[in-house]
Structures are given as structure tokens and as C-alpha cells.
């Protein structure tokens, strides 16, 4: 999930949770506030009553009577003052029912006992619960709508700010990770941002990319230099031997020089193969050729025909003439199939067969199989056949163990997949799987 999506999701969900919590808590909170406020109000009224009594005497209320009662028109509030012989209830604040003029209503009641001029009095001030709670709903509604407006407002602000905040990151990803192609030879522009984290990330990436490119270039240069340094002495050796061959008549010397030359040939092949692999891995080859498969393979089998005839191996190729491989390097593909085919010849039996076939897989990829009836590959060796310098017991000194490594490098360079299956003693089958996107059909 993208960072922006995550942040958006988080702030939306967190705000929703807060709003929900508020909605759940609001009624009880409002009720509590109203309740406490009523208590406070009742106490204030009590103070007022006592202040009046102190100022004007109790008869201000009682007017000589033993009780006094007063209530508002809708009986929402009442006050009563009564002279008592004995204390009925202790001082308290209580919610209880009172009957006033035939109506029984639930009141929040303040009860206060006091003495005045030697007489005991009880003061009751009440307020109906209904009147206490009458503002709850509108209050809640207003609070809710204010909350909602605030939530939406902060959400919009949050998201807007997050987007502005993350814009440099987006630019870093686009300019450093998505668009550049390795090797990074174009100049890398730093992303301008005031966020130091992003700035250091960007700088680190630029440094890293420069370093990788430098290392890559150095390896490239090394390959080139190593090739020069190795090839020149090899060339001098070869030329010296050639000159000796031409200047001697001595059969013994001839034979020895010839054997030396053969060893030199081995050395050259190894160096050449290593350089080829390193050049492929350094991507020093272009992939701009369109290679017609059938001519490529038939040219190859034609050239190898004498060798197959000599071993009485018969080879069948069933590749339709209209299949071409795009985005390929002709020489490397030739090398790949050449190595597979010569392997199929070398490890075959006398009078054996080689079959080069093709088919499309269900997912549209194209497969070329080269199947021989040779000695096969033991199961424990199978996973290692593409390793460098890996030789099977059967190949002996006839192989430098690089042929299949080259095949693998070329396959990886072209994004081809290789599949090997083998039955020991009965033969091997190499499958080269070519992605659908690289396959095309042309009119012949």
C-alpha cells in the first residue's frame, strides 16, 4: 500500500473513531453536566432564600403561617418552607417524586433543615427532571454538528498537507527509482524539499547510484583491461610458436610445439569464455536484432552435420519458418543454441538422435527443446550443470566447464528461462523458454 494511502486511511479512521467515541459519550456527559448544574443552581437558590430570610425575617415567606409553598406555572420548579416539630429527613439532595396539586412529577430536590428563632424548619427547593433535561437534545445536536464540521475540516487539512508533505517523496521515487535505467549515466538532479529526511534520502540515493555506476564502469574497464593484458601475451606466445613451427624440420620439435599450441588454445578458450560471460553480465551487447529462428538453427545444423554424420547421429528440426525472436542479439543467440547443440552431439551415443522441437505454452510463451539420446545427466549433478568450471565425470578433459555457463548468461541477458530434464543413461532435454513479448510471426 502506498504511504499516502496509508496516511489517508489512518487519519480518516482515527477521526471516525474519535467522532464515534464522542457521539457515544455525549448524552451521558451532557446529562451529567445538566445534573451537576442543577445541583449548583438549587444550592444558589437556597443561598438566596437564606439571604432573604436573614434580611427580612422568616415571615417574609410564611406571613404568620406555618407553611409556605410556591411553584411556577407548569410546576417545573417549586419551593416549600415548613415548620416542623421534629426533623423528618436529613439535609440532602435527592431525586424523588413530589405531588403538587394533583400532579405527581419527578423532581431533583434540595432538602435543608434549619432553626429560626427556636423553631425547626425544613426548606425544599425542587426542579423537575424534565426541565433539567430539556436542553440536552439541542445541545447534543449542536455539539455533534460542530464536531462533524471540525472533523471534516481537519481531515481535509490533514490530507492536503500530507499530500504536499509527501510530494518530494513521490518525486524522489519517480526520478530515482522508476525512470532511470541502469547504468545511470544521466545527471541525477536532487529533489528540492525542506524536509530534511527526504533530502538525506535523496542524497543517499544519488550517492548510491553514482557509486553503483562508478563500480560498474570500473568493472567494465577491468574487463577491457584484463582482456588486453591477457590477450597480448597469449598472442605473443602463439605467434612465437607459429614462427618456430615454420622454421623447423625436426618432427619431435614440431610435435612438442603443436602440443604447446593446443594448451595455448585451451587457455585462449577459457579466457575468451570468461570475457564473454563478463561482457554479457556487464550488458555490453545490444538487443536490437530480430532473429529468424529457423534459418539460424538450420545454418547451425548444416555446419554441424559432418560431425553428426561422423557419429552417425541423426538430427531433426521442426521449427516453423515464420517465427522470429525480437529484441535479441543474433550472435549471442547463435552461441546459445550452438553450445546446446554441440553438447547434444558430444554427449550422444553412436547412432543416437537429436530432436529440436518447439511449442507454445498455455501462457503464450514459446519453448524450444533440444532433446538428445545421450548419456544423460545424473540427478545429483543436474542442479549444478550451469555452474562455472563444473565438469561432469563423463566430459573429462574435453571440456572447460564453461559452455553451459555461457548458455545461462546469454539466457539471463535475454530474459529467457532454461529448463533441463534428464534421465541418466537415456538422454537429456534442454528447454529454452522465450517470453511471449519477444516472439513474432512474419510472412515468409
Amino acid at each position: 500500500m502506498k504511504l499516502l494511502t496509508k496516511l489517508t486511511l489512518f487519519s480518516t479512521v482515527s477521526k471516525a473513531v474519535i467522532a464515534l467515541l464522542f457521539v457515544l459519550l455525549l448524552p451521558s456527559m451532557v446529562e451529567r453536566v445538566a445534573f451537576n448544574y442543577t445541583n449548583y443552581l438549587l444550592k444558589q437558590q437556597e443561598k438566596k432564600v437564606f439571604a432573604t430570610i436573614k434580611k427580612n425575617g422568616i415571615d417574609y415567606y410564611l406571613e404568620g403561617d406555618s407553611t409556605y409553598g410556591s411553584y411556577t406555572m407548569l410546576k417545573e420548579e417549586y419551593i416549600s418552607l415548613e415548620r416542623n416539630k421534629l426533623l423528618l429527613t436529613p439535609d440532602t439532595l435527592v431525586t424523588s417524586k413530589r405531588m403538587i396539586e394533583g400532579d405527581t412529577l419527578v423532581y431533583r430536590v434540595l432538602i435543608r433543615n434549619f432553626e429560626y428563632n427556636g423553631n425547626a424548619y425544613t426548606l425544599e427547593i425542587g426542579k423537575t427532571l424534565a426541565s433539567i433535561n430539556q436542553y440536552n437534545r439541542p445541545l447534543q445536536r449542536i455539539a455533534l454538528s460542530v464536531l462533524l464540521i471540525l472533523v471534516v475540516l481537519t481531515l481535509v487539512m490533514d490530507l492536503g498537507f500530507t499530500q504536499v508533505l509527501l510530494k518530494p517523496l513521490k518525486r524522489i521515487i519517480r526520478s530515482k527509482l522508476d525512470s532511470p535505467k541502469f547504468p545511470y549515466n544521466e545527471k541525477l538532479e536532487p529533489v528540492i524539499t525542506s524536509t530534511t529526511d527526504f533530502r538525506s534520502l535523496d542524497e543517499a540515493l544519488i550517492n548510491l547510484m553514482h557509486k553503483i555506476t562508478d563500480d560498474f564502469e570500473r568493472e567494465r574497464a577491468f574487463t577491457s583491461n584484463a582482456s588486453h593484458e591477457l590477450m597480448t601475451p597469449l598472442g605473443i606466445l602463439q605467434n612465437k610458436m607459429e614462427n618456430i613451427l615454420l622454421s623447423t624440420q625436426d618432427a619431435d620439435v614440431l610435435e612438442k610445439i603443436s602440443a604447446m599450441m593446443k594448451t595455448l588454445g585451451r587457455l585462449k578458450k577459457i579466457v575468451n569464455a570468461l570475457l564473454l560471460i563478463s561482457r554479457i553480465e556487464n550488458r555490453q551487447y545490444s538487443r536490437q536484432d530480430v532473429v529468424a529462428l529457423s534459418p539460424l538453427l538450420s545454418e547451425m545444423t548444416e555446419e554441424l552435420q559432418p560431425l553428426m554424420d561422423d557419429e552417425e547421429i541423426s538430427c531433426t528440426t521442426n521449427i516453423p519458418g515464420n517465427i522470429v525472436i525480437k529484441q535479441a542479439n543474433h550472435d549471442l543467440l547463435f552461441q546459445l543454441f550452438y553450445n546446446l547443440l554441440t553438447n547434444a552431439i558430444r554427449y550422444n551415443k553412436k547412432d543416437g538422435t537429436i530432436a529440436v522441437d518447439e511449442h507454445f505454452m498455455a501462457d503464450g510463451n514459446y519453448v524450444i527443446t533440444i532433446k538428445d539420446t545421450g548419456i544423460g545427466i545424473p540427478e545429483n549433478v543436474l542442479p549444478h550443470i550451469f555452474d562455472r568450471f563444473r565438469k561432469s565425470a563423463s566430459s573429462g578433459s574435453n571440456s572447460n566447464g564453461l559452455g553451459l555457463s555461457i548458455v545461462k548468461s546469454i539466457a539471463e541477458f535475454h530474459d529467457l528461462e532454461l529448463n533441463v530434464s534428464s534421465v541418466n543413461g537415456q538422454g537429456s532435454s534442454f528447454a529454452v523458454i522465450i517470453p511471449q513479448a519477444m516472439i513474432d510471426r512474419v510472412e515468409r
Partner: protein
Amino acid sequence: MRILIIEDERGMALEMEDFLNKSGYVCDLAFTAKKASQFMDDAAYDFILLDLGLPDKDGLIVLDQAKQSCPGASYIIITARGRVEDKIKGLDLGADDYLSKPFSLLELQSRMQAITRRKSGLKESQIELGDFSLCLNRRVVKYGEQEIDLSRKEFDLLSYMVLHKNRPLTRLQLSEHIWGNLSDDDYDSNFIDVHIKNIRKKMGSYGDTEWLQTIRGVGYKIKL
């Protein structure tokens, strides 16, 4: 034929000189680009063999200048960097051919001969080979008037041996010529032997192939 060898690697230059002298060429050696331009100012050459990796100047610049001071010469560039770009650039600048180090001296000579043949415009370069005749331009071998059906590789092999007749040729020299730098890992290939066997069989049914000799432990030789 007069040849200028521009090569900073003395060991290699001396071997090239030795070989080419024996083949009847006259050689001058230049180990630096500076020395080379002095030589080119003083004399005209038929061939200039130019190593692109000179210490004092980029080989491609040397080639460009040499083309102006010695326009009549043929150029073979020698590269050790193995870079395709260098070869292409060299050929674009007017080199006639290129060789990658390490190369066989026989290969060098046959490239030079091919350039000479091409430039002299000889329509027909026929070589007698016992009872047979070899036509290099048309790439056919004849017995009398009868054409013998040789494969491309077989013809390459035969003509290479004919060009270097009376010299012992090793399997390495022969296989490098017909297969180039193809990287299989089969260095003990009997491929050359198979080809020779086929050549003997095909030509032997027409006439005598005594001239194609096997040298035990070495390779083959055409003795004429």
C-alpha cells in the same frame, strides 16, 4: 610488398616481422604513433598493420591521419580491447579489415592476401592443386571441368591450407580460422579431422589427394 607494423608490444611486433619477412614482405616497425608518422612521411606502404592500443595516441586518430598521408595503403587494425565499437569505428574510418588479439600469423597473412585479391580486382584467381583447381572468387573446386561439391566449411579449410601450402598447420590454427571466436568449450574437437576426412573422401573419388598430408601429432599440410 612493403609493410608498416605499428605495434607497441615489441615481442609481438618482432614475431610479426619475422613471419612476414619469411613470407617475402619488407617490414618497418614503429612502436609509437610518433615513430609511425615519421615512417609514413618517408615511405609509401602497401600494408599498414595498426594496433589501436598505442601508448601515445588513440589508435583511431592515428588511423585517420594515416589514411591521409598513406592513402594508397591497405589497413588492418589490430585490437586487444575486444570491443565491437572499436572494430566498427575502425572499419568506418576506412580500415580494410580487423584482427583481435591473439591472432594467428597465418590468419594475418590470409587476410592480407584477401585484401590484395580484392583490391587488384582479379576476376579469376585460380590455384592448381594436383589434378584439381581451386577458384577462390567463385569458391569452387574442380577436377577438370567437373565441380566437386564441398561444403562451405570444407572449402574454407581447403583454401586456407592451400594459401599456406607447404607449411605444417595445427588443428588450433585451422579450427580458429573456420570457427573464429565462437566460444564452445570443446577444445579437443575432432571437428577438423572430420572435415579433412570428408574432403579426402569427396575429392579422392575423382583423383589423387596425396598432396593433403597428415602430420602425426601436429595437424595437416598441403604439399605442392
